[in-house]
C-alpha cells in the first residue's frame, strides 16, 4: 500500500468517552506519547468536535451520555469518519445486560470502523485510524470528481 498517496492531509481526532472504564482512554493517550507517537503523521487530538475529521468513541453508551453522543456527532463537520474503539462500544462487551446501557454505538450513530479489544492495543487504534483515513480519502475523492463533473457539464 502506498501510504504517501493518502497522507496528503493531517487527521484531527476528537475523543468522546461515553462511559468506558478508562482502559481504552489511556491507550489513546499512550498513542500520542513517544512510544507510538502518531503526531508524526499529523494525527492529533483536538478539544472541540468542530475541528475534527474523525470521531473516536469509547465506552458502551449510557443513558446520560446518549444525547451528548448524538450532539457531538452532529457537531462534527462532514465529511467525517466515526471509529468505535473497544469491545464495549462495538457490542456492549461485559456491560451488555445493564439497565443503564443503551449501546452499542452503532445503534445511535453511523459507524465506519470498529476496533474491538478490551482494551485495544495502541497498534490496533493506529490501524483503525488508517482505515478511517482511507474512507475519508474515498469520500473526498468522490466529491472532488463529482464537483469536476458539475463544472464540466455547466461549462
Amino acid at each position, binding site marked *: 500500500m502506498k501510504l504517501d498517496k493518502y497522507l496528503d492531509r493531517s487527521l484531527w481526532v476528537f*475523543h*468522546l*468517552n*461515553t*462511559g*468506558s*472504564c*478508562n*482502559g*481504552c*482512554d*489511556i*491507550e489513546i*493517550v*499512550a498513542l500520542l*506519547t*513517544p*512510544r507510538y507517537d502518531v503526531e508524526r503523521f499529523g494525527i492529533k487530538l*483536538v*478539544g*472541540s468536535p468542530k475541528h475534527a475529521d474523525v470521531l473516536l468513541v469509547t*465506552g*458502551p453508551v*449510557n443513558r*446520560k*451520555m446518549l444525547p*451528548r453522543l448524538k450532539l457531538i456527532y452532529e457537531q462534527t463537520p462532514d465529511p467525517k469518519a466515526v471509529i468505535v474503539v473497544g469491545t*464495549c462500544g462495538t457490542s456492549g*462487551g*461485559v*456491560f451488555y*445486560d*445493564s*439497565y*443503564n*446501557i443503551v449501546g452499542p454505538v452503532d445503534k445511535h450513530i453511523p459507524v465506519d470502523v470498529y476496533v474491538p479489544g*478490551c*482494551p485495544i*492495543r495502541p497498534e490496533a487504534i493506529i490501524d483503525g485510524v488508517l482505515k478511517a483515513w482511507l474512507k475519508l480519502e474515498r469520500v473526498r475523492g468522490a466529491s472532488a470528481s463529482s464537483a469536476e463533473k458539475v463544472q464540466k457539464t455547466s461549462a
Partner: protein
Amino acid sequence: MSKSTYKVPIGPIHPSLEEPMTFNFEISGEKIKSIDLAPGDNHRGIEFMGRNRNIIQIIYLAERICGICSASHPFAFCRAVENAAGISVPPRAEYIRVIIAELERIHSHILWAGVAAHELGFDSVLYLSWKVREEVMDILEILTGNRVNYGMFMIGGVRRDISKEQIPRIEKTIEYYKEAYQKLEDVFLQDPSIAIRTKNVGVLTYEEALNLASVGPTARASGVKKDVRQDQPYSAYADMDIKAITPDMFSGKVNGDVYDRIIVRVLEVKQSVEIIEYCLNHLPDGEILSEKKIAKLLGILKKAEGEGVGRHEAPRGEVIHYVKLGEGESPEVWKARAPTYNNLMSWVPMLQNQEVADIPIVVASIDPCIGCMDRATLVDANTYQKQVLTREELRKLSIEKTRRMMQ
C-alpha cells in the same frame, strides 16, 4: 447567587474515572467561592450486573470498573470472596498478587505525574513520564499478557505464574526504575516552575483530611499516616515493614498542598520498586491456585454462605469490596467502594478561594483522571451572557498563569 459572582459548570464530559461528574463553580472575579459536584455520567450499573453473574465472571467485571485500577478491584473482590467462603491463598500467589499490584501503582503514579505536568503546560514532561511508563506496561504485558485489564486474579490465587526466565526481565525493570526515579525526582521535585505553580495551591489541612475521610496519597499528603498496607497488613505485605509515606519524609514539613501530593506519589514509586524487589527475592515456591478446577471452585462458592470484606491499598487509596454470598451462583450483595469516592469531597476545601486557572491542577491532584474534562460554561450573573470554555481554553488559562509566574 449574589450579583458579583459567576457560575461555571464544568463537565459532564469528564468521564474517565469511575465517578465522572459535572462541576458547578461559583466564582467572583478569578476567585472560586463555592463548589458543587454532580456525579453520575459514567454510571454503568456494575453492581446490578454482578448480581446476575457467577463469582468468577464478576472478577472480570470488577476489572472493568476502572482500566487504570484493573488489579486493585479484582484484588479487593477476590479477598472479599475468600474472606466470605474461607478460602486460603497459597503464599506464592500472594507474592505474585503483590508484584502485579505494585507494578500497577508504578504505572498509575507515573501516568498521573504526566497528566499533572500536562495540566500545568509542561508537555515535554508529559512525554518524558509516559515514555518512562512504557517500561512498566511492557513488563505487565510480559507477565500477564495484556497492557491493561490483566486478568491475573482468581479466587484462591492467580491465573499465571512468574517463570524463572521472566525474573531477570523484572530485575531489569527494577534497575530501570531506580535510574528513572532520580530523573522523576529532578523533574518534579527540584524544578522551580512546578514548585511555584503547586506550592500553597489546593491546600487540604490535616483536620479536613480526617473529617472528609480522604484516603490514599490525598490523605497522606496532608500528614494523615493512613495506608491499608501499614494499618492492616494483608497478603504478602504482611511480611514487609511498610510505612505510610508523608511529605515530611522529603521536605521536613507537611503543607497539604498539591506539591505535597506530588512528593507522596513520587516517593511511592520508589517504595513500590523496593516492594517488588523484596517480593522477587523472597518469592516462595509452590502452587499458585488453591483450587485449579474452575467448575469445582464454582461448586464450593455456590455452597458457601456468609459475608466478606476485602480491602486493598489501590494507587488512589483504599478500595473496599463487600460481598454477601447466599443461595445460588451469584452473590446476594456486591458493593464496591472506590477511593475516588472518598476523595471527591476534598475538592471543596481545596478549591475554596483558588483561581480559575488552578482548577485543572487542583482537580487533577487527587488523581481522578481529568483527561476528559471537556468544557465549561461561564455565565455572567448580571448580563446572563454565556461564554463557553472548552477544556483546551481552561488549560490555556493554566499555561498562561505558569508563564506569568515564571517572569
